[in-house]
Structures are given as C-alpha cells and as structure tokens.
C-alpha cells in the first residue's frame, strides 16, 4: 500500500478535517478575490470556475462510474442555449436558469436510457456521446435562416446568439449580476457541486457507482440493477454540464455552436486527464492550469497554442498518466514515508 497517494484514499472514506479546512480556505480565498484583483482577472478566473464544472461533470462519470462520456459538451451547449433562448424570450432569468438545468437532464435521461438500457458497450457509448454533441453542433450551425426562430429569438446558425441577458437577482427588482456577481455565483456553485459530489460518493448510491466502475458484473450479481445507477449518474452529470453551459452564457452574454464542437469536447478530456480523473479536485486544477496556460501562451506570441497543449497532453498521458494531482499526492506520500523511515532510525 506504499503506493497509495496521500489524501487520495478510497472515495468511501469520509473526508478528514483537513479536507474541510481546505474547502473553507478555498471558498474564503475565492470570495475574497474580487476585492483584491481587477476585472480582467475576475473574468479569467470566472471562466475557469465555470469550465471546471464541465470538467467535474465528466470526471465524475469517467473517474467514478467508469463511463467515458466524450460529449458532455452536448449538455453544456444545451444548457447555454436553453438559458439564452428562454431569458431573451421571457426577460426573466431565474426560471431560465432552472430550465437550463432541467432540459439537459431530460435529454441525458432519454439519451442515457437508450444507451445504458440498450447495454451498448463502453466504447460505443463514448462514440455515441461524441456523435451526439457533433450532431447538435451541425444542427445549430444550420439554423442561420429567418425561419429558425424560437419565440422571438433567432438561432442565427453559426453566428450564435448575442446579447444574452445577464442574470438578475431573484426578487431584486431587476438588478443584474455584474462581473463580480457572476464570479461569486460561479465560485459558490463550483464549491457546492464539488462538495456535493464528494459527499454523494459516500452514500450507498455513490459507493454502488464506484463498484460498477470496478466490476459491473459483480455489482449485478449482488442484486443491484446497475443500469439504474448508471442512468442516474449520467443524468446528474448532464445537470452539472448544463449548469456550466448556462453560466457560460451568463458570463459571456453569448452562446454559439462552438460550445458543442469537437475541440471543446476534446478540451474537457484534456482538463480531466491532466488534472487526474481519480480525484474530483484534479479536474478543477487541470481546468485552471490549462486555461491559464492557454491565455498565457496567447499573450506570449508563441502562436502555436494548440501545439503546445497537445505536447502537454502527451506528456501527461505518457509520463504522469495518473494526472497532476494524484502524481503530486504520490510524491508527497513517498516523501512522508521517507521522513518517517528517517526519524524511525
């Protein structure tokens, strides 16, 4: 057991005090941030937080249930478009936000039902989710004409929908969230989802999900209907991705077919692989790191951002295939063991 990373033990063990301390410090740090840094940094960090939700939705499925859903961007884009279309039509944003959660969930329930109850194999499930997100992208791109109108909103094809309303504070008399408000909202939601998933994995439901990842046949032989559990997990992940997409629409006041496309879908995988899918915090860190790297490379005039990101991914897949945080955990555990051996002498 010497190889078990520090602090990354079995998911079923309840979090230690230092985990809660970490969450509180992370939360406090994030909430203090807007008063310390200027608006451009707030915008950059906001989008990291929002995209980290998308990464979480994928790593929850992949790392804990063993379902590699290549197309979490389908729910991400759907969430964004749902919010955009409803908020523009209704001029009301709280309900639109909720709808942007519910619609991706329904879509995940239907899609997941056919894939999971049809018992298609894991690899085909990955391919199908990818195809679904690409079909949605093509579908949205094909809506440039005047006839593609929902309510009063034109879908605009590949130009996307501009001037998506900002989020209004409920019962706030139409007051809108500004940049710092969106930052707070994204930070709070990310921490809630992170803690929520961590605690969910402690429940009977969560532990059965992990057992499905380990050996689905054994789970079934014990009497659990694994399909129900997998479908539920798929719907939860769809909701998180939808939430991420709606926040993305709020953040940029804009939605476009790129939300569904292949490079967006691949990005999510890169965040999760780099961060480490065996943890929940890993993909959050992976998202922040890659997003930061992308922005930084863009300002350095390297010009080959994609190429550099590709190299980063290859290094992680070949050398640190556990991902960033689990690797750091392993190194720390090794150091601790060495220190203990040293003092023990």
């Amino acid at each position, binding site marked *: 057991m010497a190889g078990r990373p520090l602090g990354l033990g*079995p998911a079923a063990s309840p979090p230690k005090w230092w985990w809660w301390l970490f969450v509180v410090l992370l939360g406090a740090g994030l909430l203090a941030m807007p008063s310390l840094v200027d608006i451009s940094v707030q915008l950059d960090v906001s989008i990291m937080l929002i995209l980290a939700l998308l990464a979480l939705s994928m790593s929850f499925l992949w790392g804990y249930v063993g379902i590699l859903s290549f197309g979490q961007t389908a729910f991400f884009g759907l969430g964004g478009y749902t919010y955009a279309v409803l908020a523009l039509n209704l001029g009301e944003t709280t309900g639109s936000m909720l709808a942007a959660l519910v619609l991706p969930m329904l879509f995940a329930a239907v899609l997941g039902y056919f894939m999971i109850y049809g018992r298609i194999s894991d690899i085909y499930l990955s391919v199908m989710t990818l195809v679904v997100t690409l079909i949605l992208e093509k579908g949205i791109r094909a809506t440039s004409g005047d006839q593609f109108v929902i309510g009063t909103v034109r879908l605009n094809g590949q130009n996307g929908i501009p001037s998506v309303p900002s989020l209004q504070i409920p019962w706030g008399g139409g007051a809108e969230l500004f940049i710092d408000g969106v930052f707070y909202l994204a930070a709070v939601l990310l921490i809630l989802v992170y803690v929520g998933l961590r605690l969910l994995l402690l429940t009977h439901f969560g*532990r059965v999900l992990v057992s499905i990842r*380990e*050996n689905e046949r*054994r789970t079934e*032989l014990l009497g659990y209907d694994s399909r129900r559990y997998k479908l539920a997990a798929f719907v939860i992940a769809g909701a998180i991705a939808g939430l991420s997409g709606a926040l993305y629409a709020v953040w940029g006041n804009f939605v476009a077919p790129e939300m569904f496309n292949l490079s967006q879908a691949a990005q999510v995988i890169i965040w999760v692989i780099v961060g480490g899918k065996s943890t929940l915090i890993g993909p959050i860190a992976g998202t922040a790191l890659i997003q930061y790297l992308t922005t930084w490379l863009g300002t350095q005039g390297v010009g080959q951002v994609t190429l550099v990101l590709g190299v980063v991914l290859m290094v992680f897949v070949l050398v640190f295939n556990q991902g960033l945080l689990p690797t750091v955990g392993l190194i720390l555990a090794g150091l601790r063991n060495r220190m203990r051996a040293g003092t023990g002498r």
Partner: protein
Amino acid sequence: MTGDTILETFALEKRFGGVRAIADVDFRLQTGELRCLIGPNGAGKSTFFKMITGQHRPTGGRVMFDGTDITAAPAYRIGRLGIGIKNQVPDVFDGLSTAENLWLAARFARRGPRARETVAAVVERLALAPILDAPVGELAHGQRQWVEIAMVIAREPKLILLDEPSAGMSLDETNRTAALIREVNRTTTMIVVEHDMQFIRQIATKVTVFHQGRILVEDSVDRVMSDPMVRDIYLGKQAAA
C-alpha cells in the same frame, strides 16, 4: 428445511454458435442440500452456473428457483431472489478494500448499522480482519477467493453456488474452506463445483457428474467414485489412489 425443491432445470440447453455446451440438463436440488458438481474441463459446469445466475441466457429449457421462473431473468433480479455465486475466476471489486467489498454485499440485504453488523460477523467467521483495509486487487489469489466467498455469504442468499472455491489455495486453506462450507450449509443450500477429490469427500453427500454438457451420473460420493464409467472419463488414476 429439507425436502422442498429449491432449484430445478428442465431440458436446459446452451449453444455457443454450433457448439452445445449444455444439453438436456434436468437438474433438481432440494432445500438444504450440499451438492457437488464434478466433470472434466469443458463439461459445462461453469456454463450451467452462469445460466442459473443470469450471466448466460439459456438457448433452451427452463430454470425454476424457489417457485419463480428465472430462465430469462437478468442477473440482478436473480441476485435479489436469493442466489449468490462465486465465479471461477475471482470476481471482486479489485480497487476497493475488503471492507468495502463486504459492505456493498451486506448493504443490499440490510440497512445502515445492520449492514455493518453483518460485515463484522462475516469478518469474524472467515478471519478476514488482517486484510480488511487492503485493496482486494493486492491480495493473494486464495485470499481473494475468500473475500468473494465472504461477499456471497454477507449477501445472505438462499442458495449459494461456489465455482472451484479451493482453487489456488494451500492445503490448510482448503481444509478451512471445507469446514466453512459445511458450516454455511447448515443454514443455506449450496452447489459446489470442484476438482479436488479429497475436498469433495470432505463436504459432499451427493455428487452430480457432468460430461460433454450432459448429466452423466448422480449419486452418493462413494458410489460415484467407484462408478467405472466416471472413473473412465474423468477420475482416472486419481480416484484409484
């Protein structure tokens, strides 16, 4: 508790392509029995087990368990009805600890603290305490077999199927397994697939011999082992010794 039929198959058949792995198997098991299945490799014993537990769908015939037709039932439903199986190859949650493996099994039948009590009882019974926190994938083959047997017991089924429970075990472990099987059989009906004749002599009263997908003989241990036909196809020199 003995007397009623708990498991019965009628003309059970399984084809893989053109091969009939199981053909015309009429099998009957009384409640409380401890039955051994023997037969050479490829005789269809494991396939038979997999059909009873929903891991393979029979291509013909019927399976009745405890008054329910389970021929086409999915594995989870058969598990719920009360059949537990240890597969031939250890079939456990390798990445999880022994304790978590057992809890997942026990929790299906019982809630909260009672699930933990069941786990504690099984741990005590099989002396698993030293390996409770170890990931099952890191354990020795024999230990993983024990964890799987413990999971099946923790699930508290009505019928337990064990496919080669003593494979890969030391002599001492094998003897302990035999003792455990006899003890569990006091409350639970069991079918055990085995190759080890010593082991079978320790546990069985009645033996069913499979050969080329069919039931060849079904009789007491002693008579099966002295049956010239059985000795011819399967036991060979082993039984004579």
